[in-house]
């Protein structure tokens, strides 16, 4: 710069920037009247029902909380990114939310595979991260002060609850498993086998695998028929399990059927028809979607008001999970106080004990040595073509917590 005026202009610009910088927000994503939450999940691709549900459920909770005045005078705002169920896209989404949008925290509304892709980055960058839906163990193990898991449960927990339910409540001795070859189903079935052996010294009779997209399961079902079990476990996704239930009955097997976590759905009852009577499975919240209990009817009213043209099949489980966990997050922010920082937020979350932000939620507990928010599963059974809760709660202490305690 040759001229004096030029140098003065540069100096003025630099001084202004310095002043602005020093009055920037005290914490990322927090201003006097807003808290910015960054969220990601699949809204395109075959897993879109997860992200669409999670996102809309979260939006419903946010609108309710904001209508009631927000949290400590601040409104909550969500920026949502589509990860198309890809770990690479999930990581890119999270980086964009943290580095470009400067969000206060990250809400994970995606499945296990994409979520796992983001964890190293978030852990290293010390971003408060609340995973509502994924069950992959890496979210809570090893323990990180900044990563929380909410409504969903650890994948190992399915094995614990099913093993206890089958042996202690149903008292069956001979179990056969039909399981999907995809990651979630395989892990779920592996965990059931492992816990049946570890806790109850029981080996399963046989296990047959199938692939997502298969339309005929005759070879696998015949293999199970030959083993002559007391009960058949069908662990996989809804489309396959609904055909499996029909084909099991068509092929003349009369044993009761117990489904995996992804196969508890009204559409299975409609698809399998009378064959679904007596079919059982685990559900992550205390009430099923068509329950007539007041908390669920209240939820449905609010949902239908905000989304009057919802497509068939919505709201689904992920709507509920997105909804309940935003309430948990809001409670954490409330307990952190008006001077909201990331450190205060995560410490405040750790004070939650059996917190139920909404009548449709399971109780949420975090401590300063574990962030496993939910270990509850409600076993449901199909009675008269409707899902009805079974009056049974798991009592055996979960190894997930007892193994963390020792550390």
């Amino acid at each position, binding site marked *: 710069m040759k001229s004096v005026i030029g140098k003065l202009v540069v100096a003025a610009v630099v001084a202004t920037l310095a002043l602005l910088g020093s009055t920037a927000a005290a914490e990322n994503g927090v201003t006097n009247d807003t808290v910015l939450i960054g969220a990601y999940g699949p809204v395109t691709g075959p897993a879109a029902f997860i992200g669409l549900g999670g996102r809309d459920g979260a939006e419903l909770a946010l609108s309710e909380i904001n209508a009631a005045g927000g949290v400590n005078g601040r409104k909550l705002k969500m920026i949502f990114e589509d990860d198309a169920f890809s770990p690479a896209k999930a990581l890119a989404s999270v980086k964009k939310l943290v580095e470009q949008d400067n969000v206060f925290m990250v809400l994970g509304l995606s499945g296990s595979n994409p979520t796992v892709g983001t964890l190293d980055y978030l852990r290293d960058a010390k971003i408060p991260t609340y995973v509502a839906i994924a069950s992959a163990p890496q979210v809570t193990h090893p323990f990180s002060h900044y990563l929380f898991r909410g409504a969903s449960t650890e994948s190992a927990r399915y094995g614990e609850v099913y093993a206890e339910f089958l042996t202690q409540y149903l008292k069956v001795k001979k179990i056969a498993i039909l399981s999907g070859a995809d990651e979630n189903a395989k892990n779920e079935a592996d965990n059931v086998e492992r816990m049946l052996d570890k806790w109850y010294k029981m080996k399963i009779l046989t296990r*047959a695998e199938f692939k997502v997209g298969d339309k005929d399961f005759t070879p696998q079902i015949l293999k199970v028929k030959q083993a002559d079990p007391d009960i058949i476990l069908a662990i996989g996704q809804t489309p396959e399990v609904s055909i499996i239930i029909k084909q099991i009955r068509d092929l003349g097997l009369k044993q009761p059927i117990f489904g995996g976590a992804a196969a508890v759905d009204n559409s299975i009852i409609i698809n399998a028809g009378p064959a679904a009577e007596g079919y059982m499975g685990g559900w992550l919240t205390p009430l099923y979607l068509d329950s007539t209990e007041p908390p669920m009817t209240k939820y449905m009213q609010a949902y239908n008001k905000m989304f009057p043209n919802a497509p068939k099949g919505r709201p689904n489980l992920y709507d509920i999970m997105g909804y309940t966990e935003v309430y948990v997050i809001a409670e954490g922010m409330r307990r952190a106080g008006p001077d909201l920082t990331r450190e205060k937020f995560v410490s405040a979350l750790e004070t939650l004990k059996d917190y139920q932000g909404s009548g449709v939620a399971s109780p949420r507990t975090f401590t300063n040595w574990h962030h496993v928010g939910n270990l509850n599963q409600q076993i449901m059974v199909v009675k008269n073509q409707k899902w009805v809760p079974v009056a049974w709660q798991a009592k055996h202490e979960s190894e997930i917590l007892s193994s963390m305690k020792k550390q």
Partner: protein
Amino acid sequence: MELGIFVQLLVAGLGIGSIYALVALGLVLAFKGTGVLNFAHGDLVAFGAYVALFLSLLKLPYWQVLLGTLAIAAVFGVLLERTLIRPLLNAPAFTVVVATLAIGLMIKNALRLSWQENIATLPSPLDGVTVRVGDVSVNPQYFWIIGCSIAIMILLAVFFRRTLIGKAMKAVAQNRDAARLMGVRVNRVFPLTFAVSTAVAALAGVLIAPITGIQSEMGSVIIKGFVAAILGGFNSLPGCVVGGLVLGTLETFGGAFFGGTFKDVTAFVLLIVVLLVRPNGIFGGAEARRV
């Protein structure tokens, strides 16, 4: 292996094979009439199933649902041809193939967003009926599927060989410009072919739905339909049916002997073996061209 189990596996294999045959027929029909390999075919099968689902929710009787679906599918096929395929007629063949892939994706995603039930079902006159002979049980819907496949195969074979329009379609598929020079109205043949092949795809969707349920990913059956068509000799309609039945049966027995996750492996190994021995498929003749 026990006889009862053998027969049950055979029946199941022929059943699933009939599904592959029906899908393959529609795919080969589109190819025979236009020379275009329609990668959207599987998603058109799903489209047909969803249209039928929508119509059945209007409480229409089954026959009206079926005919209504075919009619809507035919119109949709013409629309696709007019808006998305016609502009690409002078593009390289590969461009058209990629365009059909894109169309399939668009249809699939539209279905995903508009219907988010994990799986839906189509009421059918054969609901709840199971045919049992001794120890062996069959879903009677499979008879329907194989019956329709054979009927379509015969009708189309007669159509292509005996009727003027059929021959015109084959000409268009072979060489569009030469066909034009011979007086064939390519602008009429293309939409007609798309209308019929979309209707066949929709029929497949309606017939398959009571067995497999309706969900947005059901179009993935096109891969097996494709394999069945190649096995049978890609330009051969009877080849589709034979290829489909052979594929379904061998895949089912492969699953029984090697485990459920080896069904796909069996299918593709079979494909490779057949192509090594008979590169033009079971019924395919080598293509001869006058130079």
